[in-house]
């Protein structure tokens, strides 16, 4: 069973990841804005615009050559459906597993109870 992905709680995020929220969201009163943003990280906000252009097309055309066209690739809808089926089967197996099954689902339920502490541990 997939044990590896079981513990992924949220993280606090890096400064870069929340930068746009800090600089561009939140309550604002224009008359009182006083900022002088220094440093390169701020520039990345303007660098996010992706323009569909001839260059992009040519780049795609180039990239297509490197992809194997015959490999079937499941997208989000298919993957979620597959996962749901898998979880249902796993759930059924656990129910049948009796003692062991109920032990597993109990410890799985206890896990989220500790969640609120999890995110803060990442960074100081």
């Amino acid at each position, binding site marked *: 069973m997939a044990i590896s992905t079981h513990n992924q709680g949220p993280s606090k995020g890096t400064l870069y990841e929340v930068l746009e929220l800090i600089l561009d969201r939140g309550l604002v009163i224009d008359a009182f804005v006083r900022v002088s943003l220094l440093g390169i990280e701020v520039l990345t906000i303007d660098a996010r615009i992706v323009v569909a252009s001839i260059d992009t097309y040519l780049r795609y055309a180039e990239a297509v*050559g490197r992809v194997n066209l015959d490999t079937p690739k499941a997208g989000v809808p298919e993957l979620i459906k597959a996962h749901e089926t898998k979880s249902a089967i796993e759930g059924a197996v656990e129910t049948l597993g009796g003692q062991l099954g109920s032990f597993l689902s109990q410890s799985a339920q206890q896990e989220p109870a500790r969640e609120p502490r999890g995110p803060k541990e990442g960074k100081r």
Partner: protein
Amino acid sequence: MTDHSETSVAGTTSVKATSLYVYGIIPAANAGEWPSVAGVGGPVASVWALEVGELAALVSALPPDRTPGRREDLNAHREVLSLAVERGTVIPLRFGMVMEGEDVVRERLLGRHRPKLIELLRTLDGHVQMAVRALYAEGALLGGAIEGDAEIARLSAVVQGRSEIESRPERIALGERVAAAVDARRAQDEQVLLDQLTPLAADLRVEPGGSERVALNAQLLIRRDRRVALDEAVRDLGSALEGYLAIRYIGPLPPYSFSAMSLEAGEE
């Protein structure tokens, strides 16, 4: 006209008011034991709660000639608000709000906008913001998007082995078709991800991805008592989509995306 040679609004004459950096607004009920943490300007700039009625502004003193904007200032802003959301409800202000003295904070922020602020605090009460970003694995979007497209396969074969100059029209046609396929695929993936998350959120904002590899960039306003359910849903998505999409899950954040309004400063 009234005599204004002497400023005596509230009895105190602040000749030179201290500039205050303002982080956010919390209910005064939660302001009581606000811990003294370092704010913008380092350990000397201790954060405190300036209370007016049922509202309190989180502020710290800022030297008058100081303009916030350094990396450590951004971090301080983030840390203070992150502490505030840990302790309860907060309306985060955008980075860089500086007001000249306590009276200005009292009158032009807390006083003037009292009804709006109380209403917003009520809306946000018991909620936090969580960010969910989904990023395609290398090649996953392109591979999935062009799969089974006969025209792309045909054009791709035509282009193979021919120089770029020689096959330029075909390359552009191919790339154009691929771009459309990629867009459609991304839109579909985004929608399905949203279908999974939306039922859990009290409110949700989809932000621009910022990169071709971003399938979803969503900010969720979520009730604190529904966090466990959201954590679980995101974890499930993460394992279902492993190898195709990587999920980045960030929070709890102050509700920046749900406080994004502009207030009027009013006359002096």
